[in-house]
């Protein structure tokens, strides 16, 4: 792996990454995809999930992202997300509570439960916890 690919991750209020990496793994809406150098041009919608990249030093970095777009070009990857959280920013306690709440809502749905929203909340909370535990 002598080659590297430029990787930029920005959310509306900040820029989280802007550097050369070995690879990026992206949680696209339709499933996970990995971008290596010389990937064919692709644009995809992002889902909720864990985005990870391997820096040129070999260190793996993880970020929780939800919603947005990614453009992959042979020599660069640009990820525009709606929200992004670094592992050290995640409030584990809050995520656990959210997970329980969503679980309860999904297991015992009543008339005004928005199942779709609960499922999204569940997905968000579980990804947060997963990423936070890697720390």
């Amino acid at each position, binding site marked *: 792996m002598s080659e590297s690919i430029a990787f930029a991750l*920005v*959310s*509306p209020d900040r820029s989280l990454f802007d550097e050369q990496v070995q690879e990026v793994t992206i949680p696209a809406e*339709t499933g996970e995809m990995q971008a290596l150098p010389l990937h064919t*041009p*692709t644009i995809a*919608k992002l889902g909720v999930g864990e985005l990870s990249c391997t820096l040129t030093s070999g260190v793996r970095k993880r970020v929780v992202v939800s919603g947005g*777009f990614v*453009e992959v070009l042979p020599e660069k990857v*640009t990820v525009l997300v709606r929200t992004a959280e670094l592992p050290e920013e995640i409030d584990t306690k809050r995520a656990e509570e959210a997970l329980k709440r969503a679980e309860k809502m999904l297991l015992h749905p009543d008339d005004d439960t928005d199942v779709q929203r609960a499922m999204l909340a569940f997905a968000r909370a579980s990804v947060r916890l997963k990423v936070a535990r890697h720390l």
Partner: protein
Amino acid sequence: MAAIHNLRRRIKSVRNTRQITRAMKLVAAAKMKRAQERVYHARPYANKLQDVIRSVGSRLEIGKHPLLLNRPETNIRLVVVSADRGLCGSFNAVVFRRVFELLEQWQDKNIVVDFIGRKGFEHFQNKVDTVGRNYKDVFRKFDPTVGAGIAADLMNDFVAGECDAVYVVYNEFKSVLQQNLIVERLLPLVEQDFSGKEALIPHLFEPSAEEVLHDLLPRYVETQIFRVLIESNAAEFAARMTAMEAATKNATEMIDKLTLQMNKIRQAAITTEIIEVVSGGQISN
């Protein structure tokens, strides 16, 4: 004595004015700092998004999405971004001058003018033939949803064919001391020129081109509008700060001048009095 009294009163009033301008300067400086940070934080996202849009535009077939359609520009929508308040130097005036130039330049076209910011609307409401929308209280509070409503209106007009192009006139925040007046075309999104250019490999779209573009392009317009708003807002505070600083300096100069004048008159009065006393004494001698 009346002259001295008057001068003293004027000095006092200028001093009061200086106090106000100084306070306004400090307020503007504090607000500008916040606005400036907002601009710096929002720029990377807006720039990256623009790169992506350009790259998509250059690889896509013409007419793939309504927001990408390039039509001959006969109906133009002009969005004028000014401040809600005055006392900010030439900030609003440069926008107005440029708008008049544009109207002159586009005489043969149908132009509808939208306003963001109270000053622009007040200035033009009776001077422009076709006043479009007037957005109020846009600069009160900021979150990314602020631009969304305005963007939706403009996109609807464009897609419905009511206008063939949308331009914005606004002040960009270059630095604390410099604002740049910018005229930018917002819609259609990209200049499409395929003549004599080698076709690039088109993108793969996940899940589908329609779905991605349907989300991506409006998102871009919203971000652009939001960027314009925060740029203009930061530039406004910078302009106000500079203007108020100049006003404070002028007030100080004026106070010095008036004080000098007052002292001169007082000296003259004292001198006359002494002469009177001395000459009076001489006569009685």
